[in-house]
């Protein structure tokens, strides 16, 4: 091969590098190892992590333990989906393209909006991008955020806005846990109001009221979700007036994987299409008139529009989108709904147990979906440690997130939670070893 290139030594391939820039030593990276060895090493690391397959699990807070139907991984791991890339060349990427089109369609149905993109990195950055989009649409610079926004999403939003000519205001949480627009944070400068549904603390928000308030001020209502399954039970945010719906769709068949890769999404009304970030797939026809799909409207995107693009996003979360598309297809119209009802029933059962358990309380009155706050009568870390010692992961310590509630945990019950395990977890939280 070298001869064909006109060289004699492999070395010469790098002649263009100024010698001072060459690395004079080998990399300080351990010697390569065989598959057997690497697997053993990584299995040893994996064995050091607590995980949701090992026992009862009630920790959610933006990353949810749901059952993953076997067909999802079986299909998604097909090499044609896994080892292909962004479907730039439509004729040889129709599999990916059609699936994205199907995802867009289903996401529109779930959110009640007209257009949805082919994924954002995660719920947090999708929320930040939604805020930026609202600022572009409204040409305003103030972003109002409910206190109920997931604290990490909130932090990411701050990161994205820092350096820009933007202002971030926080709207308070009402006594029952729901957001209020009290304090008149929404005004003629406000680009959008961002409301999480259900809120970080599990409260189901009144979106219609929020929409009215936002729209009255000429602002957009952005609804963000970290538990997308709630969309199967709660009214489509678009139907209640939301202009942008964004968030995290990890609950649709994507493994928790210590927080990623997950599946950010962003849906909007047609009117705002040109300001939407991210990839879009559209329908078209081939030279013989047969239906097919292509990436489209890319004049919004960085590879065409560069610094005037709607975002810098390029590689997104393609395979997670594929997981969610397969998942929604499997669960389908009735399955997804019933699954959401089952989640609700499990959480309501847990709430009932809490009510019956001395020493525990429900500090927030607002209705919830599959997650809610349990008030404790001792520090949460002690209660959670006791539960963990009994093999139960009983929720998230809220000390850092909502100290005003006193000792409390955020408790999530999905379809994976058996009644018996809920009983055990509540008992453990209350101080009784079960």
């Amino acid at each position, binding site marked *: 091969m070298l001869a064909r290139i006109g060289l004699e030594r492999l070395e010469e391939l790098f002649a263009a590098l100024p010698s001072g820039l060459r690395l004079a030593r080998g990399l300080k990276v351990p010697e390569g190892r065989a598959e057997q060895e690497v697997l053993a090493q990584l299995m040893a690391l994996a064995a050091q992590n607590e995980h949701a397959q090992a026992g009862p699990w009630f920790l959610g807070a933006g990353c949810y333990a749901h059952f993953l139907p076997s067909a999802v991984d079986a*299909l998604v791991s097909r090499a044609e989906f896994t080892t292909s890339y962004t479907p730039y060349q439509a004729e040889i990427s129709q599999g990916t393209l059609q699936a994205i089109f199907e995802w867009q*369609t289903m996401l529109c149905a779930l959110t009640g909006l007209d257009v949805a993109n082919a994924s954002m990195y995660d719920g947090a950055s999708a929320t930040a991008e939604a805020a930026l989009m609202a600022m572009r649409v409204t040409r305003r610079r103030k972003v109002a955020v409910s206190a109920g926004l997931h604290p990490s999403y909130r932090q990411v939003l701050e990161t994205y806005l820092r350096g820009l000519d933007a202002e971030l205001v926080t709207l308070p949480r009402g006594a029952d846990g729901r957001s209020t627009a009290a304090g008149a944070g929404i005004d003629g400068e406000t680009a959008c109001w961002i409301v999480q549904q259900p809120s970080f603390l599990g409260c189901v928000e009144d979106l219609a009221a929020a929409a009215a308030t936002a729209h009255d001020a000429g602002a957009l209502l952005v609804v963000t979700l970290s538990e997308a399954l709630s969309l199967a039970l709660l009214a489509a945010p678009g139907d209640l007036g939301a202009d942008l719906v964004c968030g995290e769709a990890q609950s649709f068949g994507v493994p*928790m994987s210590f927080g*990623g890769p997950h599946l950010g999404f962003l849906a909007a009304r047609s009117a705002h299409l040109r300001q939407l970030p991210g990839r879009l797939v559209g329908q078209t026809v081939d030279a013989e008139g047969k239906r097919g799909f292509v990436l489209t409207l890319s004049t919004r995107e960085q590879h065409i529009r560069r610094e005037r693009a709607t975002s810098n996003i390029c590689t997104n979360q393609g395979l997670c989108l594929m997981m969610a598309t397969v998942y929604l297809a499997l669960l389908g119209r009735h399955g997804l709904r019933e699954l959401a009802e089952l989640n609700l029933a499990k959480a309501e059962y847990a709430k009932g147990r809490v009510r019956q358990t001395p020493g525990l309380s429900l500090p927030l009155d607002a209705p919830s979906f599959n997650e809610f706050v349990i008030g404790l009568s001792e520090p949460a870390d002690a209660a959670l440690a006791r539960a963990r010692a009994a093999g139960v992961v009983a929720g998230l310590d809220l000390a850092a997130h909502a100290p005003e509630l006193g000792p409390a945990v955020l408790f999530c019950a999905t379809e994976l939670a058996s009644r018996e395990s809920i009983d055990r977890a509540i008992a453990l939280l209350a101080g009784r070893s079960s």
Partner: protein
Amino acid sequence: MSRNAGPGLGYEEALLFERSRPGRRGAELPTSDVPRVDARALLGGAVRDDLPGLPELSEVDVVRHFTRLSTWNAAVDLGLYPLGSCTMKYNPKLNERVARLPGFAAAHPLSPAEQVQGLLALFYDLEQLLAEIAGMDRVTLQPAAGAQGELAGIMMIRAYHEARGEKRRSVLVPDSAHGTNPASAALNGYRVVSVASGADGFLHPEAVGAAMDPSVAALMITNPNTLGLFERHIAEICEIVHAKGGLVYGDGANLNALLGIARPGDMGIDVMHMNLHKTFSTPHGGGGPGAGPVAVKAPLAPHLPIPVVVRNDGGYAWSEDLPGSIGRLHGHHGNVGMLLRAYAYILSLGAEGLTRCAELAVLNANYLLARLGDAFHVPYPGTVMHECVLSDRGLADTGVTTMDVAKRLIDHGYHPPTIYFPLIVPGALMIEPTESESLEGLDRFADTLLAIAEEARRDPETVRSAPHHTRLRRLDETLAARRPVLRWQPDETSR
């Protein structure tokens, strides 16, 4: 020439919604062991009625649907996928297995650090490894892809300047840069100033010098650049930027060419991202997920995103104690599943294996250039690094364009190269074979491209109307953009 592909059997498949039939379901739910709840009584108007927009299908329907769809895709596992700038290398199957271990795949980001020591140890070690490979001091694993890494890097650059009381307003970006570079700078509020590449394809110190002033926060540079050339003036350019108080951002998308050969950190780069889905072989997944860790020199370390993993006596812990941090960039800890795969990849290859990647990737690109350079116009001749850029200029008289050549390659079973990028090369064909390809595979591909060039003269119409063997013929992208149909609707007539 031995054939790579030709006519075969193609399956048809309608949309999920068209296949839907009332009453079907693809997943049964467990029997509830708790009382039923009347959602409407509980939630009132917040409850919706039904999900008519979702399909009704059985498991076999769904399995066939997606299995059939999959047969319409090209893939690295099916053959050469020489998409330039994307480093479509082979993704070892071990890494898929690793990512699915329950101790990783079912771990939760909010578990207390003591309960996930294996993952934190891995984060810590991977950061060290990436820093060493890049020749940098510290690394954040949070960014979900290269572009988010760029954004993080630009934010750190802003924080760095602001910490010094400076408000710089613009970022220099060469005209050959990938679109994410200017977009990332703009997303963080910088004015983007384009710097022209030289006629020889290199970025010249003079051009940078002319554009550089104290209002410039940074230069973003890609090395090797998008023409596949090693920016030979890189050291001098970095000095110029540094002299005016600016920083240099390195776009590490092309790091594959340099593994173990040279390190951006040693060239003067201050901040850079790496695309783990390119250089470190995590699968591209039809458009992600990727991962875009960012490496920085020590002066930028105070500005890394939080949380960071720290090592203490008891093991590893998260720390948010970084007052200069740009903040959080990801809802959790980044695309961890991809980090795991990249880690397994680095452990598998080791120092020598990584260096071998670079050597073979560069060898392969130069070999293709040598084989193709006569038939296709080479806008910037010379030894390239991991990829080579050709153009359709030599075919002008045939009426055959780069687009046509790309589509004709599909008929031969190849995913086309990146086309019409970099923008400074009209009709660019950007070919990155990667180290995964064998000599005979390269020869077969080169033979095919040469045959297409020849066919363009002999029978241009066949090339211009390609592809011919795929289930769908050439798709009308203009129509799609002019009359956007972005979701299926019941009244939509299916064809």
